[in-house]
């Protein structure tokens, strides 16, 4: 399980998108430079989803209702750094792996072969790829900064203390406390997300309008097919071994076998053993015709 974790409290978030911008600037991620190249999204959320150059964005969802007339929820859309991480499970090249010290899902871009299996194995649809060779683009939890005793760029820049990064246990406790307080204040649907999901997420979310308001899946699961994929590997080895073993026996039994030559006699319509002149088979072509 992750030793460290991110913490996101939707009840404090003002959606200033400082995290979104800081992620871009620290990680030198580009944004489109063409005039009016970005589309109108019909929302304050832009870009609408993660992409090859965007690892983190603030999500927006508004519904009429509540004591203020509108419930406008802001969420963090980024990697959850799952303990049971589908991406790590499928990554064939070791580009995605759990960092031993922090437990976060670290990215070694050089190792990425662009297969994009991670994208399709992530229950949160987080990994994205960029460039001609489809390199992985995903939250790295700024391990470069963390290893230099700095908070991840998004956490560092957060002004409303919505985002934190630190001991997972402490942050989970904090989240539970916070939710209890929010429920006391009348946010009945307030909930913690990430405590146990997928073996415990590396991003603990406090959702004051409930986890549906942030479009978080209630029970995220790594697709059964992904697990099946894992079984297939040994199965393939086993299959290959079994076949080879069988054939090996066959080969041994066949060694030294010299077949008698056969010939065909068009006159008699017979297959004849050339050495014994025994008729092995006879065909009745005429009759058939």
């Amino acid at each position: 399980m992750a030793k460290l974790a991110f913490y996101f409290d939707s009840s404090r978030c003002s959606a200033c998108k400082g995290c979104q911008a800081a992620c871009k600037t620290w990680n030198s991620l580009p944004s489109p430079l063409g005039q009016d190249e970005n589309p109108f999204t019909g929302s304050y959320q832009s870009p609408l989803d993660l992409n090859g150059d965007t690892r983190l964005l603030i999500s927006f969802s508004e519904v009429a209702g509540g004591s203020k007339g509108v419930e406008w929820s802001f969420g963090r859309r980024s990697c959850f750094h799952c303990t049971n991480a589908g991406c790590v499970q499928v990554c064939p090249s070791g580009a995605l792996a759990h960092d031993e010290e922090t437990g976060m899902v670290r990215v070694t871009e050089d190792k990425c072969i662009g297969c994009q299996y991670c994208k399709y194995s992530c229950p949160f649809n987080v990994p994205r790829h960029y460039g001609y060779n489809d390199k992985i683009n995903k939250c790295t939890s700024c391990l470069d900064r963390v290893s230099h005793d700095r908070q991840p760029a998004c956490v560092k820049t957060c002004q409303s203390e919505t985002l934190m990064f630190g001991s997972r246990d402490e942050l989970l406790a904090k989240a539970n406390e916070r939710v209890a307080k929010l429920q006391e204040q009348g946010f009945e649907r307030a909930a913690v997300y990430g405590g146990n999901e997928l073996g415990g997420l590396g991003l603990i979310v406090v959702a004051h309008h409930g986890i549906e308001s942030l479009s978080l899946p209630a029970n995220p699961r790594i697709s059964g097919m992904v697990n099946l994929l894992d079984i297939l590997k040994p199965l393939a080895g086993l299959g290959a071994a079994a076949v080879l073993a069988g054939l090996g026996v066959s080969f041994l039994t066949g060694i030294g076998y010299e077949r008698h030559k056969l010939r065909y006699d068009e006159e008699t319509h017979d297959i004849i053993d050339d050495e014994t002149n025994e008729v092995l088979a006879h065909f009745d072509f005429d009759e058939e015709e």
Partner: protein
Amino acid sequence: MARYIKRHSLQARITHDVFAVSGILLFLTGLFVFIPPLADAAPATTVYVIRIAHRVIGFIFILVPIISAILAPGGFKHYLSNYFRRWNKEDITWMKKFIPYMLAPKKVHMPNQPELKSGQVVADGALMLGAIVMAISGLFLVFGTWFVDLSAGLMVFMRLLHNIGFIWMIVFVIPHIYLGAGIFQPYRKTARLMFGDGKVSESDALYHWGNWAAEEFEKGEKVVEEDD
């Protein structure tokens, strides 16, 4: 002088060989994705080149049989019809005796067979089926990562298919090579059929496909005589 039957045309042989070689290359390059430590050990650019190669070869793998079929629709039809022929008692017997035969070729003798023996119908058919699964799932994987955004579920399913296909292929390709390349002692010289001039000797033809060989000798169209 010895008699031979021209069993496989040049086009058929080229098609088979390119298909086979690309298949082997796909197997090798695919291993880098299938077995993580392999990719982990190789430099990133190498792995990248291997991965792109896998995709490029994949296209060759898919295109070659299709092109071949388009170039020779008659032959393709004939080829297909062999797989969908009626099975008779001999075929059943053949299948029943296959395993004992493989383990005791000296003692167990097989019934005569038509152009495609029942074992071939099953084994090569399985290979064809596997190849089609690999091709379709592979195409989905290529398009889903390069050109269009497909749902994660579909993509994982395709990957699963690709992997199942992979195992399937291993199970059927290895015996295919074992037999086709003549590693199995009674099958010596069969490699010539696809990797040689496509001719089969009178004796081998009668041994493997007795019914078919007899017919061919009766017709004589494909029978040639060569010096030993």
